[in-house]
């Protein structure tokens, strides 16, 4: 029940009065990606690219344009291999506010033969198994945007 001329309601359970903030704040971040733009161009071509430091050969995934160990930004963009082994996974049942429009989904971390790990959705109806083989692919999410995901190899 709301008080007249005041944005105050009583909590359904404990009946204590709560002032409902009338100033709604919407946050939508703008994130610069010019330094890792090749990654997104790669997705458009169906490729998953990662920068490799020209000095020490470290591969950075998620991509970053600087090698903090060599203190250099001379990177060579390489295409990642696709076969992966599942290290860990979960199925998200209680979802964040902004994912409420989706059904339950699997997310996993899998290791590529380059020795790097990738975290992504695992697109499957069947519960995956730790240690199983997956394939890294480019797909579209439910907003129509290009993303990478894993699919099980049977």
């Amino acid at each position, binding site marked *: 029940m709301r008080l007249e001329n005041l944005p105050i309601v009583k909590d359904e359970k404990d009946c204590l009065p709560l002032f409902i903030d009338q100033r709604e704040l919407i946050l939508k971040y703008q994130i610069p990606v010019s330094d890792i733009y090749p990654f997104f161009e790669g997705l458009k071509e169906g490729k998953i690219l990662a920068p490799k430091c020209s000095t020490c050969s470290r591969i950075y995934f998620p991509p970053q344009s600087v090698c903090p160990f060599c203190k250099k930004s001379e990177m060579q963009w390489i295409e990642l291999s696709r076969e992966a082994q599942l290290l*860990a996974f979960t*199925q*998200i049942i209680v979802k964040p506010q902004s994912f409420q429009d989706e059904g339950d989904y699997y*997310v996993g971390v899998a290791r590529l033969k380059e020795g790097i*790990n990738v975290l992504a959705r695992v697109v499957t109806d069947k519960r995956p198994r730790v240690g199983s083989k997956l394939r890294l692919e480019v797909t579209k999410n439910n907003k129509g945007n290009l993303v990478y995901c894993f699919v099980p190899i049977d």
Partner: protein
Amino acid sequence: MQKVGVVGVGITKFGKRNDANMNLLAWEAINAALQDAGIEQKDVDFFTVGNAGVWSEELLPAVTVGDYAGLTPKGTMRVEAACATGSAAIRVAYQSIASGSAKIALAVGVEKMYGVPVPTVVELIGRAGNFFWEFENFGLTFPGYYALYASAYMAKYEVKEEDLALVSVKNHYYGSLNPYAQFQKRVSVDEVMKSKYVAYPLKLLDSSPITDGAAAVVLASEELARKLTDTPVWIKAQGVASGSSNLSKRSDFLGLEASVEASRQAYKAAGIEEPTKQIDVATVHDCFTIAEILAYEDLGFAKRGEGIRLIREEQTYKGGLIPVNLDGGLKAKGHPIGATGVGMAVEAVKQLRRELPSTRQADIKNGVALTHNVGGTGHFAYVTIYSL
């Protein structure tokens, strides 16, 4: 470095606190801590406010809390280290005294997580890791991050969900003995197993709740601590470490590297070689049941893969090899992010002062207690050794 003592502690009832806004909640803890120390606000040289925020309306919690609690114009800052925020707030206050810049410092941790609807909280803590690469497109949640660890650990060491449930049973048992705890009800393995999945393989009763609460400690230099109390509790050592932002950069999902590193530092500084023999009681970061098992191993209470045996054999109950979370832990006591680490300190001090009811008072033989506070999913780790 000056020796630093805890001379006053205060804690509020944890839970859904619709009766108090953030400032009032913080005041409850501050007032209790000032009284316990026998000092007034004017005696405090510096104070820190541990608050993760966003779900509560004030963006400058250090000044709103300070103003409300009569601490203005003392110097202050908000301190944030995710779920280890409370320990970080203690660290800054501790360092202010250790460095000689303050004689008395207060650290308060406060969180009002019920300030926004639950799905918004799920969103905010899901973003707490690496937003751009692990949340934006994939929608991980905080239980989801720990569920990754649970899946790997369970597969490697043949652990069942029923085993993890034993941690919930223990911590709810001790929560039922702690009037400050959010949950005062015991649970059975069967009840844990029947609770709904939030992020497979973790269920609701594997998870710490959304909580409002506050806790405060008053710290003093050695000279003042000895004047203020006959039973100062010393901060003997603190180890701090961080972990990779992206969970994909973790080498395996069988332990938290940051916890291992923080405990290594703390043990070295405190001269601890055999933790289960030298530590009387521990509060560890059990935001999920799997997290307590990982903590047993990361802190050296058990070898890697053998942590589950400690709970199966009830070795972490009072009277066991090493009692853990006799306050109910995050699981049952509650997890008000910024207050959690300070609440752990309050518990350690009360245990060492032997102030607790016998049902949950550990035997204090060495006069040493440990707190282990993790931020995020091993993104931050703080291990603190308190001693008489």
